[in-house]
């Protein structure tokens, strides 16, 4: 999953490329602190692993995030894509899937098996992180909007409307994308059918050859 999907997040990410990590970092710090306060069990579950460093590469955004976990606490560093960070494991996926994993609405195993999510490095650490996140009952939208204090509820309503609008744009972009690649897809399908036919023919010929060799002379 090195190529990001054609999505509103990708387009938005391209527009956000000029924003340096230093601008995003304070927001990441506040969110990490909020998750720490609201979901202490998340980090407690990861304690047996000892200190771990995860790079979370959001493939459709211009940044990656270094997640540091140690002694029951967590912190996040925002990095540029080109920055190298030593990590026990690197996880790559589009933003939509990573959000789904955070709130447990997406089956992480299924995403990995279909390779919509990929990782490299320490499998045990990745499995533990997946299990801990899934067990934490994180409602990311609530965690974000809580920071608005008395305006948290209206902020949540607005955020939901924005997400709904993004989903609509995503559907439209999917239709647009399919339309653009359909001539190539048709040609690829025809070639695949031809390959299948040739493979079947080869298999039949190999079988006939084996039989002819085993026949008594």
């Amino acid at each position, binding site marked *: 999953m090195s190529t990001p999907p054609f999505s509103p997040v990708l387009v938005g990410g391209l527009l956000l490329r000029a924003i340096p990590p230093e601008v995003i970092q304070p927001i990441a710090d506040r969110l990490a602190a909020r998750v720490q306060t609201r979901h202490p069990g998340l980090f407690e579950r990861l304690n047996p692993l000892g200190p771990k460093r995860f790079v979370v590469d959001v493939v459709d955004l211009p940044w990656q995030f270094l997640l540091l976990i140690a002694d029951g606490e967590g912190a996040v560093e925002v990095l540029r894509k080109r920055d190298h960070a030593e990590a026990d494991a690197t996880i790559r996926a589009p933003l939509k899937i990573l959000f789904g994993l955070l709130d447990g609405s997406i089956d992480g*195993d299924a995403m990995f098996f*279909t390779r919509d999510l990929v*990782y490299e490095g320490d499998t045990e650490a990745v*499995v533990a992180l997946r*299990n801990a996140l899934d067990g*934490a009952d994180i409602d990311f939208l609530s965690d974000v909007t809580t920071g608005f204090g008395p305006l948290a509820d209206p902020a949540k309503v607005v955020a939901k409307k924005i997400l709904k609008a993004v989903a609509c744009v995503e559907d439209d972009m999917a239709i647009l994308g399919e339309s653009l690649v359909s001539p190539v897809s048709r040609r690829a399908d025809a070639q695949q059918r031809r390959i299948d036919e040739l493979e079947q023919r080869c298999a039949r010929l190999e079988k006939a050859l084996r039989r002819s060799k085993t026949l008594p002379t």
Partner: protein
Amino acid sequence: MTRVARDPSRPVTSLELVCPAGTPAALRTAVDAGAHTVYCGFRDETNARNFPGLNFNREELRDGVAYAHDHGADVLVAINTFPAAGNLDPWHRAIDDAARIGADAVILADIGLIEYAQKNAPNIRRHLSVQAAASTPEGINFYAKNFGIARVVLPRVLTLPEIKELNRHTNVETEVFVFGGLCVMAEGRCSLSSYVTGKSPNKTGVCSPASHVTYEETGAGLASKLGGFTINRFAEGEPAGYPTLCKGRFNANDKISYLFEEPVSLNLLQMLPDVADAGVTALKIEGRQRGKAYVEKVVRAFRGAVDALEKGQKLDAAAIADLTEGGQETAGAYRKAWH
């Protein structure tokens, strides 16, 4: 020892849906999705899903039991690994604590632990784990007569006619797996993982532990390795899988194939009428290592199917088609097509 369904609206003749919970959040999800019963384990080697970041501490189990009981569901605690000689304490504590917390049953495999539970925690139901591999009426009745086993989880090696016949010769409740990953071996007797990693489901509670798993991108595709051995290789675009030895793809006689078992999921949803006819008490869904999204979808689908069966309605199999391993499903030995 008579089991009383906590949900009085549930007819006693209905099939009991027993659902997996790897975390407290998954427990609540399973209960909310319609589980009659949830099974889980402590966060150590006493249960056969001892994966990192998974399972319950004592406080979480207490809260989970309270949540389940408040919603009319039961909680079973799996203590189904085999203790090492001289190190019985973790298993004894697990039984004591499950009983003290108020769980509805313990699922046990080791005969010594079953006797311990009978003597020290007589008020908690004892279920015989699939890990005990009891598959004959004689074996099951022996456990019932001597240790008061109330239910047996049958190994996935029996056909439905065999299960029906077995049920005619025992009064012990039977529980069968209906969905999820499959073991090709007789449960409790597989050492493949132990050969390669030194850890097994029988003693340490993990098959192919994640600590020994690596995935490597190679020129020929994504290689999955266990203990340094390549177990499978997946071409670009091909769905990947977890490297358990029994589901590896190997080269034998110049032919690359799944030698032991293809990565498919058990799915008996369409066969539930036959399962009910075989006289089983409970339907078990595998997957304590899976996430909430999986639990929610599978439990909801099977609860819908159980309810539909009771009402004589058609069963909807499409609801869980995308959750089967490798996108493929099988009825396994329940509908045996080999001899």
